[in-house]
């Protein structure tokens, strides 16, 4: 499984229990640009599934965590390493931009 879905109820556990870096896509069904970013991330993750764990967080079930993380836009992509946020980006990003940015932070 390349992608896992996360909600308010299992987010903290996932962050604490995953060894690999996490790339978390905070998205919403009403958000147009999310429809490009999600598949682009899936695409990047498939190239080397061992490099990081791709996590999809649907805002409908992630409201509390998004508030705690101070996320204020969709799509927002966060990178977590050893349980800590190391980078985030918001807005419509192309696959090449995402790839470059992920490489910089992993």
């Amino acid at each position, binding site marked *: 499984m390349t992608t896992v879905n996360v909600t308010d109820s299992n987010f903290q556990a996932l962050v604490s229990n995953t060894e690999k870096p996490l790339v978390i896509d905070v998205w919403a069904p009403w*958000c147009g*640009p999310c429809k490009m970013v999600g598949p682009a991330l899936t695409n990047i993750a498939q190239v080397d599934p061992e490099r990081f764990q791709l996590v999809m967080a649907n805002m409908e079930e992630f409201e509390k965590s998004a508030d705690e993380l101070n996320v204020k836009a*969709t799509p927002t992509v966060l990178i977590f390493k050893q349980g800590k946020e190391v980078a985030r980006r918001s807005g*419509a990003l192309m696959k090449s931009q995402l790839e470059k940015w992920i490489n910089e932070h992993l």
Partner: protein
Amino acid sequence: MRHEKLIILGTGPAGYTAALYASRANLSPLLISGNLPGGQLTTTTDVDNWPGGQVGLQGGDLMTAMQEQVERFDTEVHYDHIVAADLSKRPFILTGEQDEYSCDALIIATGASAKYLGLPSEQAFLGRGVSGCATCDGFFYKGKEVAVIGGGNTAVEEALYLSNIAKQVTLIHRRDTFKSEKILQDQLYRKVKQGNIKLKLNATLNEVLGDEKGVSAIRLKSMIDDSTEILELDGVFIAIGHSPNTGLFDQQLKMDHGYLTITGGNKGNLTQTSVDGVFAAGDVADQIYRQAITSAGSGCMAALDAEKFLAE
């Protein structure tokens, strides 16, 4: 490299309508999505001016219906974003993020993207209280205070949309009259009367203020006497208009203020650009009308022009 008779760039109303007509003319077009599949309408809510549209028709749903319709006629929709083009000879060569393509005829329907003011503080707080899309991010401002910058349809629509979510919306416009449709202005003034929306006219956004948690205020500057004032809020939505997505064709196609120049007139072939076999439709070649329906109409014309070109 993949070769196609006809490639259409962009999946707004112009691109989908071009694909619909081209596929029904058995041209088997390849439709390349661009970086915002469904285009600008996916970042709006109610579309009340689409002929025949049902009450409450949503931009995103309309675009999904357009995609399903072209797929029904065997148009292939490819999720890619073209980053380089060579239109100097035929076949035309397009380089995407995923693949490389060549084609005998090309319809450019890459549309336009939301503009930002260009303030460093605006860029710094993007996604942390500064947004270019109320429908994407309005959700985060439930019960909070926000401002919308702009005076056209997008700005008024965003202010109306946010007034149902946020505690207080301030619409900030650098002039004292709005460019938006009269029906939207009526709705706006009704909300102003009810107190859900405040207006700040003759004022511009001067700086976005905040800290590591995000935006906490904005500084406004008066267009009349240059005086400044601070407005405390949680979010600011920029809706100052759009610029055409034509950078890819710089030095290759004739443009006017960044918009592709097309033949126009009433002798047919009016969607032809300065290069034979390259056609343009929708906002990418329209700085005046910029409506879903005018884009769809010009998409149809571009497909008919391309069909004629390919037959000759």
